[in-house]
């Protein structure tokens, strides 16, 4: 089919990550040997990232519909209806491997990619979140990775001009060789102006927009391609460099042409750039696509068809244009200083044809490229359930005040201020609640509506019991939205796991997905977008299963949103939900007793829903003056966080007689919240709870500058604060892990 391309050999096939039987499948499908460029295209379309071949069968079990859902998984991002003709467009995506190789650029381009997914659909991004998992603080690479990743996330988002308002950071030795960077973007659009990827109409111009194509990120096969490239070049890095400036221009230009009604279909170029985007536009629209590579703007000379088709240069888009709008659209792109080139057209043939230098380099059936990708039902095993840790078998290693002071300064519980102060979290002028609370609250335009946004998962629970852990991740996101008074609407997920070819890893994946599905159903919290990242392992050791959940909720009036800070001396502190004192997999057990053991706390989804609905109603009825969910570290940590946020202390009631104090205060039982009500309103609240059948009990009273537990020395807020705020900056400045 073409000159100058290497011959296909079994080695070359293997270098493209295609298994022999997958190659057989290709031969059968096209009835001949593929050209080199075609092989590259198959490898891009059929790899795990694009084809979801290991995960597809399981993802089908996720609930993806609901009253608010406009667009579920399958497009660039999910779309939900928030009323008044407004839609929220959001998705989360990983950039794990690139950020391990080059933390700054890897994280930056991760943010850039997810922003593009959102504005491709016609939405202006209004917030970003990020969930980061790093190796043990004592690992020699950790500090370098934290500093690079955080700078990269900030570097891109700050320059692009979107507030980064929330996220997660964790440390665990299982991420030593494989950190995770999950980035989420949230945008706002009009429900009647959402743009999709499906092309329509024959003979429509296909336009290339944005930055020029270079030899960025041409993966696995880069060696092979170098062999026939021009001369002896230095070995090319496969990292991409982000250009937030160009992306900002691309955003403005795209929104401008969308407003002018120039666009039939639009698709960003993400993984496997031109290949994936062109194939998807054609296949979704039941059309063929012909590309003329000679028209593609390139920033390097002598690029081959193979390289152009597989380049992952950033800040690019592909669009099917209304032909009569060509001049108008071009003028807009020129004004913003961006490339605009007609590089092809839609055809009736359902073939994907790529021409370069007058030669047809690719001629493939467009639908089969995606549809006929292999799908695997990989074998999986479920791990036996871990024993439930009995409280009686956990001797408290220290007194309660010492335990709190110690826990609050541990890597997983301490303040993330050092991180989020490097993110512009106020740009836009709509950040009602900044990072540091349960959910970020971002006003929608001029209000009064606002979004509650959060990202959650507790990987140690997922490892111990994938099904319960999957449930818990969803429940915690739902709870964090509820704790600010939001109504949880929908979520995006980012499923990070090890090698799916190992049955135990596949078992984790299947378990977590089933848990997520169960919780989504029980909580009416559908999945509208997501991303799967597999093969997160080094030297045969997988990461902790980490299915990050990004939740979006709606607040009707942002001025009624609850915050976690105590509000006034004398107010009553009330616990909602039941505490039996679950220590298995708790941070208390892990970080103070040195035991990473046992079954994680079970999540009762009925209780979860009842308790959450109760708390949300309290907030909406303006009865609760503060609210906070109870998660990592348990009840005393939650109270301490409320105290530190306000500078007001608390005097706490003794633990119930039937629960040992350390289990009561540090157990991680689920479905719980701490709320405060004005002095004298506690009785009424307890009565309301009793009526609703929701467990509630008086926990203490706000006041003073210490947290006082009966029979224990008072815990100074000042000391707590120093420990809470101290660890991360000290560590990052080279201090002890």
């Amino acid at each position: 089919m073409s000159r100058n391309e290497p011959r296909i050999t079994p080695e070359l096939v293997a270098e493209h990550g295609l298994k022999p039987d997958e190659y057989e499948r290709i031969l059968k499908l096209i009835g001949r040997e593929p050209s080199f460029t075609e092989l590259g295209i198959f490898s891009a379309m059929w790899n795990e990232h694009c084809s979801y071949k290991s995960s597809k069968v399981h993802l089908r079990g996720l609930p993806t519909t609901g009253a608010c859902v406009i667009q579920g998984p399958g497009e660039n991002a999910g779309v939900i209806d928030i009323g008044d003709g407004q839609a929220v467009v959001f998705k989360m995506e990983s950039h794990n491997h690139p950020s391990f190789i080059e933390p700054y650029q890897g994280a930056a381009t991760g943010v850039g990619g997810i922003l593009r997914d959102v504005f491709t659909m016609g939405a202006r991004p209004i917030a970003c979140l990020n969930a980061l998992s790093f190796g043990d603080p004592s690992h020699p690479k950790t500090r370098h990775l934290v500093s690079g990743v955080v700078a990269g996330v900030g570097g891109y988002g700050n320059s692009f001009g979107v507030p980064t308002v929330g996220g997660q950071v964790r440390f665990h030795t299982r991420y030593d060789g494989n950190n995770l960077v999950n980035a989420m973007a949230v945008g706002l659009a009009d429900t009647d102006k959402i743009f999709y990827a499906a092309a329509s109409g024959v003979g429509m111009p296909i336009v290339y927009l944005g930055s020029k194509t270079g030899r960025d990120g041409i993966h696995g096969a880069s060696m092979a391609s170098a062999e026939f490239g021009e001369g002896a070049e230095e070995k090319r890095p496969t990292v991409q460099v982000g250009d937030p400036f160009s992306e900002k221009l691309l955003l403005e230009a795209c929104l401008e042409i969308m407003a002018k009604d120039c666009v039939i279909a639009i698709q960003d170029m993400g993984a496997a750039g031109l290949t994936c985007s062109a194939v998807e536009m054609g296949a979704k629209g039941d059309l063929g696509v012909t590309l003329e590579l000679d028209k593609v703007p390139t920033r390097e000379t002598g690029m081959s068809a193979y390289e152009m088709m597989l380049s992952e240069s950033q800040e690019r888009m592909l669009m099917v244009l209304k032909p009569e709008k060509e001049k108008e659209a071009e003028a807009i792109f020129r004004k913003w200083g961006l490339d605009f080139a007609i590089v092809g057209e839609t055809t009736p043939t359902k073939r994907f044809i790529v021409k370069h230098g007058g030669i047809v380099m690719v001629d493939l059936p467009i639908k089969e490229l995606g549809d006929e990708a292999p799908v695997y039902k990989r074998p999986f095993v479920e791990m036996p359930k871990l024993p439930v840790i009995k409280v009686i078998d956990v001797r408290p290693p220290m007194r309660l005040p010492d335990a709190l002071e110690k826990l609050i300064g541990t890597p997983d519980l301490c303040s993330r201020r050092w991180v989020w102060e490097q993110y512009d979290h106020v740009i836009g002028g709509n950040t009602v609640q900044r990072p540091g609370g349960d959910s970020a609250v971002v006003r929608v335009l001029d209000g009064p509506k606002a979004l509650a946004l959060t990202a959650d998962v507790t990987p140690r629970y997922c490892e111990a019991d994938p099904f319960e852990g999957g449930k818990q991740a969803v429940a915690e996101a739902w709870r964090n939205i509820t704790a600010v008074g939001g109504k949880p609407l929908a979520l995006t997920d980012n499923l990070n796991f090890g090698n799916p070819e190992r049955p135990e890893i596949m078992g984790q994946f299947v378990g977590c997905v089933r848990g997520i599905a169960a919780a989504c159903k029980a909580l009416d919290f559908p999945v509208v977008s997501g991303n799967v990242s597999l093969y997160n392992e080094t030297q045969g050791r997988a990461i902790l299963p980490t299915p990050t959940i990004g939740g979006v909720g709606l607040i009707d009036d942002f001025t009624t949103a609850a915050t976690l800070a105590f509000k006034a001396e004398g107010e009553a502190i009330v616990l909602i939900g039941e505490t039996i004192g679950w220590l298995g997999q708790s941070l208390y057990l892990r970080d103070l007793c040195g035991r990473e053991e046992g079954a994680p706390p079970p999540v009762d989804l009925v209780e979860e829903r009842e308790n959450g609905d109760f708390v949300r109603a309290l907030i909406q009825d303006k009865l609760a003056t503060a609210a906070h969910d109870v998660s990592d570290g348990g009840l005393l940590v939650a109270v301490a966080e409320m105290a530190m946020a306000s500078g007001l202390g608390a005097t706490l009631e003794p633990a119930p007689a039937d629960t040992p104090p350390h289990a009561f205060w540090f157990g991680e039982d689920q479905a719980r919240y701490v709320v405060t009500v004005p002095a004298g309103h506690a009785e009424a609240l307890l009565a309301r709870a009793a009526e609703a059948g929701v467990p509630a009990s008086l926990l203490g009273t706000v006041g003073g500058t210490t947290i006082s537990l009966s029979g224990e020395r008072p815990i100074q807020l000042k000391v707590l604060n120093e420990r809470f705020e101290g660890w991360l900056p000290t560590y990052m400045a080279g201090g002890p892990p």
Partner: protein
Amino acid sequence: MKAAVLVFPGINRERDMARTLKLISGQEPAMVWHAEPQLPAGTDLVVIPGGFSYGDYLRCGAIAARAPVMDAVRAHAAKGGLVLGVCNGFQILCESGLLPGVLMRNAALKFICKDVYLRVERSDTPFTRGYNAGQVVRVPVAHGEGNYVADEATLAKLEGDGRVLYRYAAPDGSLDPAWNVNGAINAIAGILNDRGNVLGMMPHPENHVEAALGPTDGRGLFAGLVDHLKQAA
């Protein structure tokens, strides 16, 4: 008040600024594209908002400072017209020569976004008349390069002429290196040109103007400008 907000490629706080100007003056500002050779007729106040013009590549504000519209801004300033540059706007003003000095990387070499306290040094300028001298206001910063530097002669002149209008301070107004968020010399957060009609400042008063969202200390700056222009009219 007829305000013109300049829009350079990569600027990203122009909406925040326009919204605040509208909120406080009641008048929609004109958004002026960088390639325009002229400002709208009757412009009272030119605002250069924050962001990352041209990605802040090369030096912050350097490329924007050389855009066509800046000649019009220079002419406007030469006639005594008011110019306010915030964050990237401050950087652009320094690069364009309308203000002395430069803004270098933050001393901690990190981007920083947080609320800071500013001491208002005097209240007898259009940019501070909404405040009292010595008043401490709380506004956010969001920048990676806000570390103001100038040579000794320039600094002596700035200080001698009372052209430092805002300084990073502790909440009680005292000067303390711990509260100097980016390490700026003399804790300088905002300065005036010699004629008194061009202000550059790093913090974002435009982000603290709505009670429903938190502190409103940024209002004074804009309210003062509105008053000044009313009186001048």
